[in-house]
């Protein structure tokens, strides 16, 4: 068995080494962890290995630390499974900072955090912010605030759009017309690479975080927009702290300390027209007092 490529990615204190064999497996690996992606050079506390394999008969396998965790014939499912295992591993082991289930984009110098549970519409909103509002894509899944450091790490990965969200983003992102090299269609979702943003710039300054958006997409709903107090923002954010059980005091005090210069907004919407004006206003927001 010949290994066609090896990738290494460091995030939230863990290192993942990915090897793959077979052209399709390599394509998936290149797509999720591009050759020019930031490897990170920090010291890590744990490491994991993944092995993606594809043979000529169209059979795929995924191994984690030499243990077979999936095999099948759907390359899209292999991509989804690998990505979810990778994210799960980072969350499971992380104990040296706050790791949030959250997306993030950058607008000019400022970072906008977008926490939310699965199905809240994080990726849908992020797609719109990137395509229509000129934001820079950082991540749609995990954001890490290491203890004692002035930086925030975002976990680069392709946009992970659920099939159900495609009609919502269709007006500005026609998934069917995206070039194959930027797109993997899976059973329940689509993975879409955001070109040009794998430059290794996965760390941003913590003090650039100014705004936290808590979106809730709800079909056919009217818009409800709330500006949150610091305590309300903290309450919402805490619910998206995925490594709380690994942290002393469940990371509760550290999470509330993030609220110093940050303004949170909670909103329900069914179309981007409903939130356009508010988003435009808040992405220029800077909280004036600490």
């Amino acid at each position, binding site marked *: 068995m010949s290994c066609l490529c090896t990738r290494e990615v460091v995030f939230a204190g863990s290192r993942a080494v990915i090897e793959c064999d077979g052209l399709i497996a390599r394509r998936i690996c290149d797509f999720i962890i591009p050759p020019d992606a930031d490897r990170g050079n920090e010291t890590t506390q744990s490491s994991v290995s993944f092995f993606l394999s594809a043979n000529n008969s169209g059979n795929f396998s995924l191994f984690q630390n030499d243990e077979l965790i999936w095999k099948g014939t759907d390359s899209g499912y292999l991509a989804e499974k690998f990505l979810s295992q990778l994210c799960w591993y980072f969350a499971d082991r992380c104990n040296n900072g706050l790791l949030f289930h959250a997306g993030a984009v950058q607008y000019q110098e400022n970072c906008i955090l977008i926490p939310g549970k699965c199905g809240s519409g994080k990726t849908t909103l992020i797609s719109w912010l990137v395509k229509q509002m000129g934001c820079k894509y950082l991540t749609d899944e995990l954001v890490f605030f290491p203890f004692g450091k002035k930086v925030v790490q975002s976990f680069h990965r392709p946009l992970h759009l659920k099939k159900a969200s495609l009609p919502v983003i269709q007006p500005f992102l026609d998934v069917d017309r995206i070039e194959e090299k930027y797109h993997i269609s899976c059973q329940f979702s689509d993975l879409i690479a955001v070109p040009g943003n794998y430059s290794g710039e996965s760390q941003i300054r913590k003090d650039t975080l100014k705004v936290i958006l808590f979106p809730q997409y709800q079909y056919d709903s009217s818009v409800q927009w709330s500006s949150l*107090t*610091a*305590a*309300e923002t*903290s*309450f919402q954010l*805490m*619910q998206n702290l995925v490594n*709380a059980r690994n942290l002393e*005091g*469940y990371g*509760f*005090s550290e999470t*509330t300390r993030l*609220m110093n210069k940050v303004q949170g907004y909670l909103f329900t919407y069914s179309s981007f027209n409903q939130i356009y004006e508010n988003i435009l206003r808040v992405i220029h927001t800077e909280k004036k007092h600490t």
Partner: protein
Amino acid sequence: MNLCGKPQARSNFIIEKIDKEFVLFNTENLEIMYLNQSAALIWSLMNGTLTIQDMIDLLIETYPEAASEIRTDVIETMQRFFERDVIQFI
């Protein structure tokens, strides 16, 4: 609700005060609660020596202009605390 009961916060909470509001984290069931200003004020009166009626009287004395809402606010807040197992009566 018995207004003569003396409510006391259970010990299994981590409390963070942010501005004039509180966020509580229950270390047993990992639930998070948000307390707005008035609920935070009521929380801070629960020291195990004041009855609910004492708390109502104290708040009315301090905020006479809000007297008509205070009784309902305190009872509803206590009810909420009790339902979520945040307090015990001693």
